[in-house]
């Protein structure tokens, strides 16, 4: 597994995205899946950057592996921040009008919809969120 550790800050997003893209570019991955993976990475990493260590600072580690049959990408996000399971967040009501809409929860909702599996664990003081997408 390839590994990247960065400060859990929004300004590190490009570095995280680039790290995943480098792995994906070795595969013949359709545009749509590429964007879905990039969105998932952004939503999860930004969530960690915004909330995990607030108001302090800390690191996030991202692990990435492509393999298996059927071929799939597995990405793990680890942080030592407050225990937080984003999967418990209630799905937003996507039928409301613009005026009634609130934006919270849309990011993780998109991740749930586009990945083939998503799993949360809290182990030894670490939040571990694992997403998997068949390529």
């Amino acid at each position, binding site marked *: 597994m390839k590994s990247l550790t960065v400060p859990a800050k929004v300004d590190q997003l490009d570095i995280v995205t680039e790290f995943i893209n480098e792995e994906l570019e070795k595969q013949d991955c359709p545009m749509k899946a590429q964007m879905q993976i*990039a*969105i998932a990475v*952004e939503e999860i990493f930004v969530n960690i950057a915004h909330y995990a260590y607030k108001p302090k600072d800390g690191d996030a580690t991202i692990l990435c592996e492509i393999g298996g049959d059927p071929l799939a990408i597995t990405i793990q996000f680890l942080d030592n921040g407050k225990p937080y399971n984003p999967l418990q967040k209630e799905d937003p009501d996507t039928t409301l*009008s*613009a005026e009634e809409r609130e*934006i919270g929860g*849309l990011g993780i909702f*998109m991740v749930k919809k586009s990945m083939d599996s998503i799993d949360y664990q809290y182990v030894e003081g670490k939040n571990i969120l694992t997403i998997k997408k068949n390529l």
Partner: protein
Amino acid sequence: MALTINRSWAGEKEVTLILEGRLDTTTAPQLEKEIQELDGITCLKMDFEKLDYLSSAGLRVLLLAQKKMNRCGEMILNHVNETIMEVFDVTGFIDILTIE
């Protein structure tokens, strides 16, 4: 990885924002500022032909823009590519936005 925004005016009350690049957590504030600065318009168009990425941070700004234009006119999106359309579809934004 950045976002470029160009304005194209059609008269005094209609403007098209031509977006190129990525609308993500890092770049969405740029578009938000641009939209806040627009005053007295009745038609806001956004050309997405060269926009190749959109996350929930981008959706948030589009929602703000839509709410603003609901009060004073209309907002229309053009040339939305298939992958971004998929995002609008999954999130129900397809029903909120006017896409041509």
